[in-house]
């Protein structure tokens, strides 16, 4: 007991600022949530609460839940029943989860970079309009995000033990009860373990120590889905394709209506070319647009500069170049320019510059990343991989709210903070040295 008290006191002393930031976030949005949001108007919150009630009452109608597994409904209904007020319960779930996200964002970033960078990243989280929105609205997004962030904390630890891998699996499993998207983070982590763990045999061992706890955690969910709903996953992708795909034809839509209950493959084979057209539009325009907003409407963005969201891409790229320690020698510049022109040619031949222009930025940066991959710290590499894998998978759908991308967002403010804290002073020093050298030469 004494040891625990000492540990807590030590933790408080070492982490005063992140605790203060978290506390300010909590009390600010507690005030907004409980003094300005007085009527339960969120259809999502009501839907998940009522669905949870049906499940708790025996789930006799066996109707599917559109868009999410049973975790959210069960949490909202049970907690709502305990407090006898689902609205208050929902607000508490959202506020505590987002406070947890802000708190863990510091410790995840501290696993990657210095304490200063971690603090700035945490501040970017605390002032982000979308995190604020999630903390005051009764939705099903904040709780899974919190569990994903806890798993990211363990996944990015420098020294990992068996318990670390087990915890990554368990927390991603818990997050899957709320949103299936957390499986994409698991896939990214497993790929990272298989490819980038130096000792392959340990990679495979750690792979198993992550995968099996994950499967054990979600097995009750899968059993419930199979026994009650007749299928392992309640994800109704084809409904979303029908509702959200940008490019559709009348024939495609008519046929799609008949296969809404089927899986993604049937949707793909209905018209592979149209499916791919939508996929690449989502991957290269629509979904990244929610990160940096290429269009004029700025409301729904995760950029750290929400008033001019597109500018938010610059410090993130700066941080990436800094972390890869890119040395722009002749060879690298040649590779960059040739990648740019080859990409330009490919877009001209097979794509559409209006929707695929982001490739002109992504591909040269990817080439730089691959050339300098050994310079990137392993845990940073994992976050970059999870960002790529998540976008590759999620882009079968156009996300309709930017907060759906929050599970992978951390790397962007973290790289931006790194750019401001470490790269900018370095650039300033180089400029000063250059000017000084220029001055000395003139004197001679």
């Amino acid at each position, binding site marked *: 007991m004494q040891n625990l008290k000492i540990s807590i006191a030590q933790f408080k002393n070492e982490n005063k600022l992140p605790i203060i930031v978290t506390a300010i976030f909590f009390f600010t949005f507690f005030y907004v949530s409980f003094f300005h949001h007085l009527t339960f108007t969120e259809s999502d919150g009501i839907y998940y609460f009522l669905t949870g009630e049906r499940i708790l009452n025996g789930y006799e109608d066996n*109707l599917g839940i559109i868009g999410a597994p049973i975790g959210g409904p069960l949490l909202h209904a049970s907690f709502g029943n305990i407090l006898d007020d689902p609205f208050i319960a929902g607000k508490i779930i959202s506020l505590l989860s987002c406070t947890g996200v802000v708190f863990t964002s510091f410790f995840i970033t501290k696993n990657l970079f210095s304490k200063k960078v971690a603090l700035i990243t945490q501040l970017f989280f605390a*002032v982000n*309009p979308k995190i604020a929105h999630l903390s005051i609205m009764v939705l099903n997004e904040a709780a899974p995000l919190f569990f994903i962030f806890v798993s990211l904390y363990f996944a990015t630890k420098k020294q990992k033990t068996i318990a670390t891998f087990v915890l990554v699996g368990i927390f991603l499993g818990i997050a899957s009860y709320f949103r299936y998207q957390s499986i994409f983070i698991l896939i990214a982590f497993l790929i990272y373990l298989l490819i980038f763990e130096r000792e392959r045999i340990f990679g495979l061992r750690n792979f198993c120590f992550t995968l099996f706890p994950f499967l054990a955690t979600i097995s009750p969910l899968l059993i419930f889905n199979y026994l009650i709903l007749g299928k392992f996953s309640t994800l109704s992708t084809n409904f979303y394709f029908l509702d959200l795909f940008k490019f559709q034809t009348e024939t495609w839509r008519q046929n799609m209506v008949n296969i809404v209950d089927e899986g993604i493959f049937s949707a793909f084979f209905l018209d592979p070319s149209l499916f791919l057209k939508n996929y690449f539009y989502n991957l290269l325009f629509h979904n990244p647009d929610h990160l940096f907003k290429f269009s004029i409407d700025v409301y729904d963005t995760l950029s750290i500069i929400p008033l001019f969201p597109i500018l938010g891409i610059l410090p993130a790229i700066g941080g990436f170049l800094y972390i890869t320690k890119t040395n722009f020698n002749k060879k690298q510049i040649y590779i960059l320019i040739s990648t740019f022109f080859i990409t330009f040619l490919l877009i001209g031949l097979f794509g559409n510059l209006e929707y695929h222009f982001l490739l002109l930025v992504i591909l040269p940066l990817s080439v730089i990343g691959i050339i300098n991959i050994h310079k990137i710290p392993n845990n940073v590499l994992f976050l970059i991989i999870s960002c790529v894998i998540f976008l590759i998978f999620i882009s079968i759908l156009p996300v309709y709210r930017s907060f759906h991308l929050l599970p992978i967002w951390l790397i962007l403010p973290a790289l931006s903070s790194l750019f401001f804290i470490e790269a900018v002073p370095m650039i300033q020093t180089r400029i000063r040295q250059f000017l000084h050298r220029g001055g000395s030469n003139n004197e001679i």
Partner: protein
Amino acid sequence: MKFNLIVIALFLLVSISFTFMLTLSTFYQNEDSTDSKFSILDGLLSGELKSSEEETRKIIQLLKQDENIEEKFIMASGKSFTYHTNSKLIHSTFTEGSSDDTVEDFIRKKTWSYYELYMSANNSIPPHNDLYVNQIPNYLIYSYTNFSDDPNTTWYKYDNSYIKILENPEDPNIPKFLNPIYSSAFGNGGIVVYEVNLQD
């Protein structure tokens, strides 16, 4: 002071201001709202802000005046009116059916597709499996907004002009069986409540 700290402070300040305005516009609106995205700022400066939830609360109070509201069906896109009045919901996004429909066809779900019927049944309160059940609403709550999620949406941007007439309760083309009992318009949208007097 260090240049990088000034830039970070500036970025954080912009984010805080943006978050404040977004949060403010989530729960409040300008009394004399216009289409302008900055109307909330005008309202804040002039002190003419009103709670966005006020409309919902007024409509809930109005519906609760119906003694038998718990037995009645409300056709709406949102769930809050039904939830707060313990009534029943026929869910609709008001985009179902075909462009040749009349308002009555729409209410009777005459040309709704299987997909539209399924989505409505699943999102209704209580949800049900019988997609073709005959339910005529007692109230219809039509809320509309001028904002679009994707302004570049292509062909499936349906023509539902026959439903859009519901935006204006004084439109002479509104069928007689719809009796407007509440309406409120604000800069970027509005809400109209109709009593539906349509026989099965």
